[in-house]
């Protein structure tokens, strides 16, 4: 099953599948239905960080240095915790300035400098080449292992082998072809490749699944779980060193510098910058990625140590390279399906890295190296108007092929001397040199172009001297004396013990010297002179990126330009149709003025420059725009003035925002107050109308009786007295009604007088019962009291409380049947207050009326059959009084079995807060 044709066919099918996904992703992106607008896909695309270094190399590294394979994953984990600050800022800057690569980023920050962009590109290309060689080495050695299946024969590349017979050469070519169709099919002003990201997310899943499959196979298939494998560490003393962080003879410095190095590399590797910053669809995706991506790293590393131990035990003394254990372990068990899956996983890891890395590098080479050179020789500015997008694509495709061939060359020259991880670390150290210029540029306004140039050059040279050249020396391409005796025999210049510094591993050694030179030169040269106009402008744009809330910065351009010239210029690089579309979109956004006027304003010029920057880099874009526009240079004072204004404007707008939100709040309050007022008004109207209605009833009867008396002078004395008695009682009712209405209105409006003091409730009840004894005597009713002594005091108004009691007692009396009526007044202690209940044995109240009777002017029961004898205000007033003192008043009743009115009042000492209300 593992014959060569099968392997080749499966590999090509898999690459084809990736391509299909990419094609589909691009198509969906064109239709506006992005498939990568998803935080999980974003996190998976970041996992392009895990290359064959991780897939094959980690096990080899573990065999060499125990758990020392891990720090390069801990660094990115830490960075992701800070991603919400650092990556977010990078994303904002990149989006606002249409930056497409690290070279563009640095060149743009330090005044759109061609020189700086070119230098960064060269460092990136030279630095990444070993990393690409690593992928070629891993793929070619796994392919040749597969071809010798079922034997396990270590591949043997000799330097004398002809290129035509070398498998890895063809692999490099295939990968180049594949990258070209992937990444450079058309030119996009934002340099975004949605389809590629989708394919990368898929390959990340594949490599994780296949690595976990091997891990499970070794741990649970060959052995009996983690415990079983690690038990062998005890029985094989020579394996003990695997279970340590620090291989003997080294300090913790190596571990620490790997964490720092990987953190920097994770931010500044061209491919990581591409997927994490340039391809970011939505900055909110950073949140999920902040933990999902580290989780991915953790998962893919769980089985590394078990596989390393398993491989060492299994192939003990057979000379099998530990870098191939992941593949050779399943091979040795003739587990063909798994072998194929592992091979595809490794291929995924390599292809993903190569595709994204070379696309990112080719963009840099095109925009920051080739374009500026062509501009310098005036190749573009004077050419007849024509579509140059084809030329740009051609340059990028050429760059891809060249980069892969350089990777192949390095592999041939130096690849055999090192393990996979060691090669990768050389590249990591190279891209870490971008850190001072990048981070300094994002957070420090003082960095200048000169400082960045000096820092990058110094760091790069030290790196080349302490890491790159030794790698050639170790492979025999430079004399070995160079390593042992130093350059030209100067002992102090030994590249791996520079100036006699010893005790470090080579990575820490390089990191220390290169960072010392890099940061020292960057800061030192920057401090020599103040920033120039262009540098100060860009410093403000970059450092304040998060303050604008992602909007475009201030307009820093003055001059004259024609709209048609600008559009034609953009059209030459992006194609006329795309340019037309972009310009009309801009016109729509900013009002149509720009579409018709001939003269472009500064905003349009900046827009055109940003468009071009996406295609040819910011430095070249500036030159191209300058060629069609007459710019009047701004002085540093003017720039500072504009920036100052912009920041003032920001402050003002923030102030304005604050004011407007305050205003909104005030408006809402006003609305609420108004509604309350309307509600009160409505209540007042209600009361007025019911009061008028209630007043009319007694008035009508008074008037009727009076008229009877007037019209009939011969009326009997007995009748006359009866009528007069009725008139008097109706008048009394009228007076009571008016008093109570006024009382209620006072309570409701909060203007009532309350004289609160500590009261003995028992005394109040006794006084009220005494006052009503006459009514009960008339009805021949019995009043029974159950009032315990020495109860705690309550806080209330004595007269008001008597008013409540009188109301409840007279209500009870009203409904008692003559002669058999009984009323119970009971006082009880509750946990936090006292409860008074007044129980009668009258007709009771229907449940649906229990709440109704507490409404104003509502009288229930015999209203239809008899004339109402109350005002309908007694109970509402009583309830308000009780509630005012923190209690409750309610009724419990079963029709036919009497009614019980209860109210509660809290203890005096339990409600200090009420004293204020009482006063």
């Amino acid at each position, binding site marked *: 099953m593992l014959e060569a044709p099968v392997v080749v066919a499966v590999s090509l099918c898999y690459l084809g599948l990736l391509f299909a996904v990419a094609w589909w992703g691009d198509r969906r992106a064109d239709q506006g239905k992005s498939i990568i607008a998803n935080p999980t896909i974003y996190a998976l695309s970041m996992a392009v960080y895990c290359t064959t270094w991780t897939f094959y190399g980690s096990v080899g590294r573990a065999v060499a240095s*125990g*758990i020392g394979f*891990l*720090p390069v994953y*801990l660094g990115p*984990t*830490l960075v*992701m*915790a*800070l991603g*919400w*600050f650092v990556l977010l800022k990078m994303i904002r800057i990149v989006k606002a300035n249409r930056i497409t690569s690290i070279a563009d980023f640095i060149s743009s920050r330090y005044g759109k400098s061609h020189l700086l962009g070119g230098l960064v590109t060269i460092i990136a290309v030279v630095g990444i080449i070993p990393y690409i060689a690593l992928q070629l080495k891993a793929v070619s050695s796994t392919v040749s292992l597969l071809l010798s299946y079922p034997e396990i024969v270590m591949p043997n590349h000799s330097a004398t082998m002809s290129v035509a017979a070398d498998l890895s050469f063809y692999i490099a070519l295939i990968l180049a072809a594949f990258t070209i169709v992937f990444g450079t099919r058309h030119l996009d002003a934002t340099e975004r490749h949605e389809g590629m990201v989708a394919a990368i997310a898929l390959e990340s899943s594949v490599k994780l699944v296949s690595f976990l499959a091997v891990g499970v196979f070794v741990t649970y298939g060959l052995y009996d779980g*983690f*415990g079983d494998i*690690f*038990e062998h*560490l005890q029985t094989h003393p020579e394996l*003990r060193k*695997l*279970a*340590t*962080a*620090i291989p003997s003879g080294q300090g*913790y410095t190596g*571990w*620490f510098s790997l*964490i720092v190095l990987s953190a920097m590399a994770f931010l500044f590797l061209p491919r990581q910058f591409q997927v994490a910053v340039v391809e970011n669809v939505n900055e909110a995706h950073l*949140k*999920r990625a*902040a*933990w999902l991506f*580290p*989780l991915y790293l*953790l998962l893919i590393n*769980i089985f590394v*140590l078990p596989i390393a131990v398993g491989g060492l035990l299994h192939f003990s003394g057979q000379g099998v390279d530990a870098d191939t254990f992941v593949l050779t372990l399943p091979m040795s068990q003739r587990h063909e399906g798994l072998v194929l899956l592992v091979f595809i996983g490794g291929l995924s890891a390599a292809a993903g890295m190569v595709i994204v890395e070379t696309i990112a590098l080719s963009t840099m080479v095109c925009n920051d190296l080739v374009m500026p050179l062509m501009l310098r020789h005036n190749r573009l500015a004077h050419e007849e108007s024509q579509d140059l997008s084809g030329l740009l694509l051609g340059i990028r495709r050429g760059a891809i092929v060249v980069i892969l061939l350089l990777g192949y060359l390095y592999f041939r020259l130096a690849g055999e001397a090192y393990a996979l991880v060691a090669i990768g670390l050389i590249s990591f150290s190279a891209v870490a040199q971008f850190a001072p210029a990048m981070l300094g540029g994002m957070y420090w306004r003082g960095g200048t172009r000169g400082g960045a140039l000096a820092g990058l050059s110094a760091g790069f040279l030290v790196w080349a001297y302490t890491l790159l050249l030794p790698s050639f020396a170790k492979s025999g391409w430079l004399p070995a004396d160079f390593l042992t005796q130093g350059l030209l025999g100067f002992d102090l210049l030994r590249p791996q013990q520079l100036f006699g510094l010893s005790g470090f591993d080579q990575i820490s050694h390089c990191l220390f010297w290169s960072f010392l030179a890099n940061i020292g030169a960057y800061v030192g040269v920057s401090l020599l002179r103040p920033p120039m106009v262009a540098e100060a402008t860009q410093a403000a744009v970059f450092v304040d990126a998060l303050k604008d809330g992602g909007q475009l910065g201030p307009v820093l351009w003055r001059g004259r330009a024609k709209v048609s010239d600008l559009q034609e210029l953009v059209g030459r690089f992006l194609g006329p149709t795309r340019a037309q579309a972009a310009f009309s979109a801009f016109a729509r956004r900013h009002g149509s003025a720009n579409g018709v006027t001939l003269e472009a304003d500064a905003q349009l010029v900046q827009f055109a420059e940003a468009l071009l920057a996406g295609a040819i880099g910011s430095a070249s874009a500036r030159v191209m725009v300058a060629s069609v526009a007459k710019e009047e240079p701004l002085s540093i004072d003017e720039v500072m003035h504009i920036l100052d204004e912009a920041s003032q404007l920001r402050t003002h707008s923030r102030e304005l925002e604050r004011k407007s939100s305050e205003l909104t709040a005030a408006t809402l309050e006003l609305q609420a107050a108004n509604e309350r007022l309307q509600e009160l008004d409505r209540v007042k109207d209600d009361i007025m109308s019911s009061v008028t209605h209630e007043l009319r009833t007694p008035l009508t009867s008074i008037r009727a009786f009076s008229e009877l008396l007037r019209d009939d002078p011969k009326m009997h004395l007995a009748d006359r007295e009866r009528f007069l008695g009725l008139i008097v009682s109706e008048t009394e009712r009228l007076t009571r009604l008016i008093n109570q209405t006024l009382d209620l209105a006072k309570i409701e409006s909060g203007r009532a007088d309350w004289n609160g003091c500590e009261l003995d409730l028992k005394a109040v009840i006794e006084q009220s019962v005494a006052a009503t004894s006459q009514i009960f005597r008339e009805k021949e009713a019995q009043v029974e009291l159950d009032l315990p002594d020495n109860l705690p005091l309550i806080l209330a108004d004595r007269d008001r409380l008597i008013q409540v009691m009188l109301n409840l007692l007279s209500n009870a009396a009203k409904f008692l049947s003559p002669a058999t009526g009984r009323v119970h007044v009971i006082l009880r202690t509750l946990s936090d207050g006292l409860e008074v209940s007044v129980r009668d044995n009258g007709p009771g109240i229907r449940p649906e009326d229990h709440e109704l009777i507490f409404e104003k002017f509502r009288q229930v029961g015999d209203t239809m059959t008899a004339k109402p004898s109350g005002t309908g205000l007694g109970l509402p007033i009583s309830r308000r009084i009780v509630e005012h003192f923190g209690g409750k008043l309610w009724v419990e009743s079963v029709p036919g079995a009497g009614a019980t009115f209860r109210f509660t009042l809290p203890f005096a000492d339990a409600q200090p807060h009420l004293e204020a209300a009482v006063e």
Partner: protein
Amino acid sequence: MHRRILAGDRLVAAFLVGCVLFNYPLLSVFDRDAEVFEIPLIFAYVFAAWAAVIALTAWAVERRVK
């Protein structure tokens, strides 16, 4: 606004916790010949600390601050 600041502070805390847990001297405390649940101590420690930092980060970004 407060919500954002708090989440940000939590992320910085996660970063600092990670820096301490992943490095000397804490690392050296666990770098000795011992096992927990039959797993070498250093291996168990690094993975546990790693998982803890990831969990802390997840908590900081995903949890809504009340």
